[in-house]
């Protein structure tokens, strides 16, 4: 049987660990693809940087939730409140994991397609930004769960 403090700490570890991993996955794939395109067409780099920045924002969301959980940590006396903190961490972890997978696939394809046909950028970027919206949904629900602690 876990005690409330340890359960809350596991939630904090999940809420900062998994978002940084998914942000790293998105940045690794999109950053290397961007470096390859930049050698051929450097004028596209200023538009393609949106994939890397949106991937990096995932880690910021995880930091936000982890910080709010740390602020709640001294008040976690009962097991129910600690379980809510753990669930908030799991929600943001799954949401940013899905968003990281979406950004890494759609972003590398966007970069490759833009190098061939720059006019296709405006419709292909929708895949990247919509998969980034998944992380926002997870963030909002995680806020609601933290609000009930």
């Amino acid at each position, binding site marked *: 049987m876990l005690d409330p403090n340890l359960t809350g700490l596991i939630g904090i570890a999940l809420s900062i660990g998994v978002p940084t991993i998914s942000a790293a996955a998105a940045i690794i794939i999109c950053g290397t693809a961007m470096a390859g395109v930049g050698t051929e067409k450097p004028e596209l780099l200023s538009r393609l940087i949106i994939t890397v920045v949106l991937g990096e924002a995932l880690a*910021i969301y995880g930091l*936000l939730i982890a910080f709010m959980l740390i602020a709640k940590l001294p008040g976690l006396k009962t097991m129910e409140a600690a379980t809510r903190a753990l669930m908030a961490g799991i929600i943001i972890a799954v949401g940013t994991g899905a968003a990281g997978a979406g950004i890494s696939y759609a972003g590398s394809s966007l970069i490759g397609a833009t190098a061939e046909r720059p006019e296709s950028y405006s419709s292909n970027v929708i895949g990247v*930004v919509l998969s*980034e*919206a998944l992380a926002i949904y997870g*963030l909002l629900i995680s806020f609601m769960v933290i609000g009930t602690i």
Partner: protein
Amino acid sequence: MWSYWGGISGISKWFAEGLLMMAGLVITPLILLVVFTGIAEGFMEGIGFGVEVFAETLSHTLSYGRLMALGLVHSVMNYLFLVLGGVEHGHFPLMSIPIIATGTFLVMIIEGLIVFVHTLRLHWIEWFSKFYSGEGIPFKPFKFT
């Protein structure tokens, strides 16, 4: 547009205000949308368009929650450097000023990039898909020949 407002107020109030509120704000505009599109373009087109508009407006409304998240991120990242500098309630060591200055500078750089990209995304996806038409008269600068 009606289902848009319904989505905003409905999330927290559907079950609190009862069935009448939900019927008035969400179901009636959805039925009107389906019926009129169905008359104009066929039955299945109407249903597909109604579902698409409803899901799109709801998700776009939620998407503006990122502005709240970015504001919170700003306060959290600055508070992080205050803690690193050793500032507590009622206690402000002078040695922490360079740490806070450096931290604020770093936060300004990284947040300028992130907030710029997020607002650009809001313009492209949420704003332009509703209100941008791309029409107009090309600008001809006045000049003497």
